[in-house]
């Protein structure tokens, strides 16, 4: 997105009546100058890398801006803006990678760091057992921005502060609520990518994340319960704040936090589960998103994130779930947090199937992963979370397709004799090959004889991935479909953070093992 100087000034310092014009003005001039120079700076890196013997090179010159506001009860705890600007050069020499990055965006620094990247690659190449190669990517010259309406960085702060304080006030209007904390977080990535393949790509990405947690305390008993917001982050602009009734949800959260203090503890055992999209997205993330990352299956993440129970020879053979289960990977999904025009290999965003009618059919790939397994092209899953981070395989949006009927949540409940209805994500944990998992939630309701019953507490379920998805026997229709997601999916060494979304309808699972977490800690 290109903003003119006039709109910039209107929407920032001047609009707020702050006497900071000279500094803003000079910053703007500097930013515009830097924007004009990026192609030239990229050529410095690419030419130097080629001269030094690199068979492939790319450079990313990126600016990352964040704005974060946090409050508790009636007070503002923090309002902060941060930005980070720099470049990273990646080279292939002798079949080995090298990478070097600096915040100093100048021709001399780019020359210096390109040489450093080449030296690292050559040093590694001397010991490399198997050469890295890349499948081809199209040559691209493009500008792209994600599909937001209002850039949150153009909106004044006082409206954001009032949004949070009103949310807190609404939650605290509920009798029995003791504390509420809330926050707004906005991210803007301004990315420039150029490669020795001849690609030049500019991208402007906005993401927004309102969140809150309400706490009710029973001081006499020394007990407390919390209820966090169900909205989650989205790849949207400021308009996201108008697309959800946050105030109503804050009040509901307050009521539910208070109700949780007196809710009945779950009796451990096997239950049918009906999982709302505000909960199920995280189970999809952990039990489908990560196992279908090809780098894990090849052992590249064995030291940290782990491997996968999926292996290349299981492609097209392993039954992942019931026939109703269809998963897509999608880097083009509207409002998706991992939606991009192009990945950090310069490969266009795409949509493809991972699981079809319950059968595992495909992987998440990058240019080097695709070459490892004899593919001819990449699905475009390369991503770095900063100019200073090495691009590597990261998860696209992975979503569960809605059912063919227009089934509602109530219709799914109707066929449950004894079960639990779960909203919101809570505690989550899964093993390093993505078999055994345990998930909590925010709010749990008993399902009895086909209807939603009383509130339950201290619930978590444990399952094994193929068994769990095999137990899915009903899906809600498009009308129940919603997108959940995370700003902070961690992976890699050094650790990197990825924003990713997962869409799904409400879904029903038969006879899943449910724990009472309080009894595990001797509280019941």
């Amino acid at each position: 997105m290109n903003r003119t100087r006039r709109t910039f000034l209107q929407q920032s310092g001047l609009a707020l009546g702050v006497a900071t014009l000279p500094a803003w003005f000079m910053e703007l001039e500097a930013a515009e100058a830097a924007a004009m120079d990026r192609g030239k700076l990229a050529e410095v890196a690419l030419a130097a890398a080629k001269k030094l013997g690199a068979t492939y090179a790319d450079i990313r010159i990126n600016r990352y801006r964040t704005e974060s506001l946090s409050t508790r009860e009636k007070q503002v705890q923090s309002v902060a803006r941060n930005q980070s600007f720099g470049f990273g050069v990646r080279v292939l020499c002798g079949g080995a990678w090298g990478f070097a990055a600096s915040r100093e965006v100048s021709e001399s620094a780019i020359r210096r760091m390109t040489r450093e990247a080449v030296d690292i690659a050559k040093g590694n190449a001397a010991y490399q057992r198997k050469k890295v190669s890349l499948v081809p990517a199209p040559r691209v010259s493009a500008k792209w921005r994600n599909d937001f309406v209002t850039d949150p960085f153009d909106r004044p702060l006082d409206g954001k502060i009032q949004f949070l304080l009103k949310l807190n006030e609404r939650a605290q209007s509920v009798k029995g609520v003791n504390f509420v904390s809330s926050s707004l977080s906005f991210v803007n990535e301004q990315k420039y990518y150029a490669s020795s393949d001849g690609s030049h790509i500019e991208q402007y990405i906005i993401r927004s994340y309102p969140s809150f947690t309400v706490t009710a305390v029973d001081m006499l008993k020394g007990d407390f319960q919390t209820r966090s917001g169900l909205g989650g982050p989205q790849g949207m602009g400021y308009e996201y704040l108008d697309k959800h009734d946050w105030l109503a949800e804050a009040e509901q959260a307050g009521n539910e936090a208070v109700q949780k203090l007196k809710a009945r503890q779950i009796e451990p055992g096997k239950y049918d589960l009906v999982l709302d999209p505000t909960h199920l997205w995280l189970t999809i993330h952990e039990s489908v998103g990560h196992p279908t990352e090809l780098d894990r299956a090849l052992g590249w993440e064995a030291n940290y994130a782990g491997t996968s129970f999926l292996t290349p020879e299981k492609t097209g053979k392993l039954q992942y779930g019931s026939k109703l289960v269809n998963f897509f990977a999608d880097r083009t999904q509207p409002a998706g947090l991992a939606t991009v025009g192009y990945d950090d290999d310069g490969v266009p965003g795409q949509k493809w199937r991972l699981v079809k009618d319950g059968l595992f059919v495909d992987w998440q790939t990058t240019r080097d992963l695709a070459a490892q397994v004899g593919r001819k092209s990449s699905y475009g899953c390369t991503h770095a979370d900063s100019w200073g981070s090495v691009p590597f395989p990261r998860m696209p949006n992975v979503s569960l397709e809605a059912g063919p009927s227009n089934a509602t949540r109530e219709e799914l409940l109707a066929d449950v004799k004894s079960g639990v209805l779960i909203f919101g994500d809570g505690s989550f944990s899964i093993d390093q090959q993505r078999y055994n998992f345990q998930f909590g939630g925010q709010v749990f309701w008993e399902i009895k004889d086909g209807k939603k019953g009383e509130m339950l507490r201290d619930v978590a379920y444990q399952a094994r991935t193929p068994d769990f998805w095999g137990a899915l026997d009903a899906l809600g229709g498009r009308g129940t479909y919603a997108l959940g997601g995370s700003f902070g999916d961690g992976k890699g060494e050094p650790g990197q953070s990825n924003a990713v979304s997962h869409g799904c309808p409400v879904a029903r699972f038969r006879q899943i093992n449910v724990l009472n977490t309080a009894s595990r800690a001797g509280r019941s």
Partner: protein
Amino acid sequence: MISEKEARAICEKLLSFVTADDAVVGVVSEDYAHQRFAANQFTTCGVRENLSVGVTVWAGKKRGAASTNEVDDVSLRKVVAEAEQIASVSPVDREYLPSVSPQTYQPVDAYAAATAQYPAASRARLVHDVIGQCEKQRVTGAGFFQARGTGAAAATKHGNFSYERSSLTSLSLTARTPDGTGSGYFLRNHYDITRLDTARVARESIGKAHTSREPRTLDAGTYTVVLEPQAVADLLGFFRFAFDARSADEGRSPFSAPGGKTKAGEKIFDERISIYSDPWNKELPGSQGVQGGLPAQRVHLVRNGVLETLVYSRFWAQQKGKEPTPGPVNAILESSEPPASVEEMVRDTKKGLLVGRFWYIRPVDIRTLLITGLTRDGVWYIEDGKIQYSVRNFRFNQSILQLLAPGNVERIGAPERVGSSEAQGGDSSLLPALKVKQFNFTSQSEAV
């Protein structure tokens, strides 16, 4: 890496641009290098240099904060102006306290130039040697080496200035057997690379891979366990955040007590256990400053099993008429009795399990510090004082309060410098091996 003189110049320049009533400014520079490998070959390797500044101002007690990594004069003016602009539209900060006046610090020696400047050729050679060990002993190695040097300074409008350097290096290795049934892991870190025992990392990881092969299936349930220091570090990662006094006073902490009280002063842990922070520990140097510039001191969180200290922020201390807590800046768990080795713990175990590492640990219930997670990279069944065979991994649901409670801790080892595996060695503690009577495993995992 930024020198004290350069850092002071940037801080002074930032403060000179401040028109607000009060300000805290800071600068952090980092030189970072890493070498990653998997499937017995290099994967991603690189270096990064960065320097960022942060500004927090209060104008009429209204707070604003901004940071940037562009440090030319225009950008420094801009970041101060941005913080002041934010303050101008913010409500009054009800928790404002004036920034600290000049303080006297007792320096901490946490920096080794050999670590911060470890060259690329040496990094490649070090990892090549580890891969060579893996190949020689017929395992597939994946791992991570990192080295960093950091310089950080902070200054306040009320005249305080502090500068510290630190360094950190770590090596971790996961070794997997070709049949896919055995896996071992070992991680160590240090601020001084000459004291990082890379040969031990390779030896222990590869050894665990071979001895964990062909695991048998054991029912989930409650077992006596011997936890190696790595496993203890993985378990206690969330523990350090539990000592906040404000949360305890507000009734939403594991250390809250009925009737609006706290458990401070109660013996809630095994009486041999003491947990403390010591900025000047030679093996685990901490930081000279805490809480916006207060000089760090030695702080006992737990002494002989008694919850001695809850951590008061400057604001909460003022509200409660207490002194702000000058820590913690690191974590050391020690026993009052002579330490036992892991071998001794195994020897005096009738039936139990030896655990080397836990993984994917997440809080389930903060009231009891109930956490869940899994064993990873080797679990071994002990009977009659001997390791009998390896067993499949388990999921656990375990309260940390119960883990360390009186009557549950049987033996305590000598503290070792370890980092949690989920933090990739980036955090450090001095933690011992533990033998505990009851540990709750709730299901099996077939993952290797």
